[in-house]
């Protein structure tokens, strides 16, 4: 039997197409010939696999057809667990974010490095300088506050506060009370720049008068006082001048006696048109003959060019009122005016040694 006929017979046998006789005959053949049996089994298995393969292909076709009817995208969307937007942002852009962060960190470090911020010494000195600056500005602020405070008093200054003038050759000096009030210690400095320690001998706060006494051991006395003290009241429009220390060097100023009454009709004072400055306080007011007619006192802050001086009669009273136990001997005032026939320049030159800068600490 040819192989082709055998295969055909096997197929007919397996499909059940054989007649009963044929079938008996073929089964007889199968029993007798083992190779025929093997061929039958082999063919059966192979064709079975082929059929199963066909079924599989058909089934896959059916499943694909079903799948095409499903809205896959919607289902995928519905079942996907969506992380929060920030996680999503991180997942999508983490490489970019990392690069940006690295650049930022590098830039910050580079800036710190080049500006010397990472150098501890530098930052320390910088800080020190800042403290200095703060201290200075603090001092300035305190000074400004002091200036504002003291400007409420007439003619103040802080370290050196005013002017004084000798009333006797043994070192009694007259000045304004407000110059030396609330002091610790008082020094007077003469025109030559020499300082002498002084003590407050007598004060009359209500009249703004203070009498100082030079107590310094180096003080040897003044020469004879060239000026006199006028007790009577001076006349209106009298030519008057002042001499004092509004700054380190002496300053002369002149003007007229503009009123015999002071601020608010106060009979203690003269009103004068001499320009005076803080530091002039306590200085002498003289008339054209070289008589002391007053002690420079203060100015009217609301009116320009209006200043005041205490009348000399109050000074003379105060001198008289000095308690005798605080004096070694009663003060003797000069009665001989050496200035009356001199020119103004000469008068001022003679005045020089007798007018002092009063310094209060």
């Amino acid at each position, binding site marked *: 039997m040819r192989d082709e006929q055998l*295969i055909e017979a096997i197929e007919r046998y397996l499909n059940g197409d054989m007649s009963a006789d044929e079938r008996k005959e073929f089964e007889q053949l199968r029993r007798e010939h083992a190779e025929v049996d093997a061929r039958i089994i082999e063919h059966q298995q192979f064709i079975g696999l082929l059929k199963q*393969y066909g079924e599989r292909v058909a089934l896959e076709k*059916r*499943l694909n057809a079903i*799948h095409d009817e*499903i809205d*896959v995208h919607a289902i*995928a969307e*519905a079942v*996907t667990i969506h992380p929060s937007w920030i996680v999503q942002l991180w997942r999508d852009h983490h490489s970019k974010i990392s690069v940006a962060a690295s650049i930022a960190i590098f830039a910050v470090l580079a800036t710190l490095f080049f500006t010397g911020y990472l150098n501890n010494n530098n930052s320390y000195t910088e800080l020190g300088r800042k403290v200095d600056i703060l201290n200075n500005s603090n001092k300035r602020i305190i000074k400004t506050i002091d200036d504002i405070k003291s400007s409420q008093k007439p003619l103040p200054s802080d370290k050196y506060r005013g002017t004084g003038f000798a009333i006797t050759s043994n070192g009694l000096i007259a000045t304004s009370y407000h110059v030396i009030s609330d002091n610790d210690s008082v020094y007077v400095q003469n025109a030559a720049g020499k300082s002498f320690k002084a003590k407050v001998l007598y004060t009359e706060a209500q009249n703004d008068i203070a009498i100082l006494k030079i107590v310094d051991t180096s003080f040897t006395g003044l020469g004879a006082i060239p000026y006199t003290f006028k007790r009577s009241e001076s006349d209106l429009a009298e030519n008057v001048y002042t001499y004092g220390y509004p700054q380190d060097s002496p300053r002369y100023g002149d003007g007229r006696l503009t009123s015999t009454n002071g601020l608010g009709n106060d009979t203690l004072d003269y009103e004068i048109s001499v320009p005076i400055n803080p530091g002039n306080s306590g200085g002498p007011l003289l008339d054209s003959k070289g008589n002391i007619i007053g002690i420079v006192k203060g100015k009217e802050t609301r009116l320009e060019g209006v200043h005041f001086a205490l009348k000399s009669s109050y000074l003379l009273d105060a001198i008289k009122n000095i308690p005798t136990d605080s004096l070694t001997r009663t003060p003797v005032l000069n009665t001989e005016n050496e200035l009356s026939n001199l020119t103004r320049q000469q008068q001022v030159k003679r005045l020089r040694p007798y007018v002092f800068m009063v310094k209060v600490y």
Partner: protein
Amino acid sequence: MSTESKSSAPTDSEIVFGILNNSENAIKRLYVAYFPMVMQLIVNNNGTPDDAKDIYQEAIIVLYNKVKKGDFELNSKLKTFIYSVCRRLWLKRLSQMNRYGGDIHDFQEYLSVEDDVEQQGERDIQFTKMQSALQLLGEPCKTIIEDFYIHNRSMQDICESFGYTNADNAKTQKYKCLQRLKKLFFQQK
């Protein structure tokens, strides 16, 4: 998974009898009912919707064959069986792609279905061999073999559609084609 809980969700026995009776509708209802569950498993474990389709269809075929063979026992839910098979198949796929991180995000209970998956794997290898043997066979042999053995057409029909003068010529041709197919099939490794 709202899609799954729709009223159209078929009972397990409906599906099993539907498959045994070659019911087109039963397979469709089965397919629609559990696809979202598998989609959820795959897309939340580094897969794409296309991966979900492949894995799910493979699992349906495993179930189909098991039911056809008659050894599917309704002692577990169909849903759990499908999920377990998909899970097993996907783990296998992930490790093949070196994408398995040792951790899988589960959404259902699952059974051990390794035997079923293994059997399926062996059969798939045979089918792949058959497919490539048929491709190598070329026309007209491929169509003759498919028509006769798979589509069960009669030799008479084949003879006519291929224009053979008589049935014997067609039979000889078919015999030669089958011999060549066997040779091609067994030559493959």
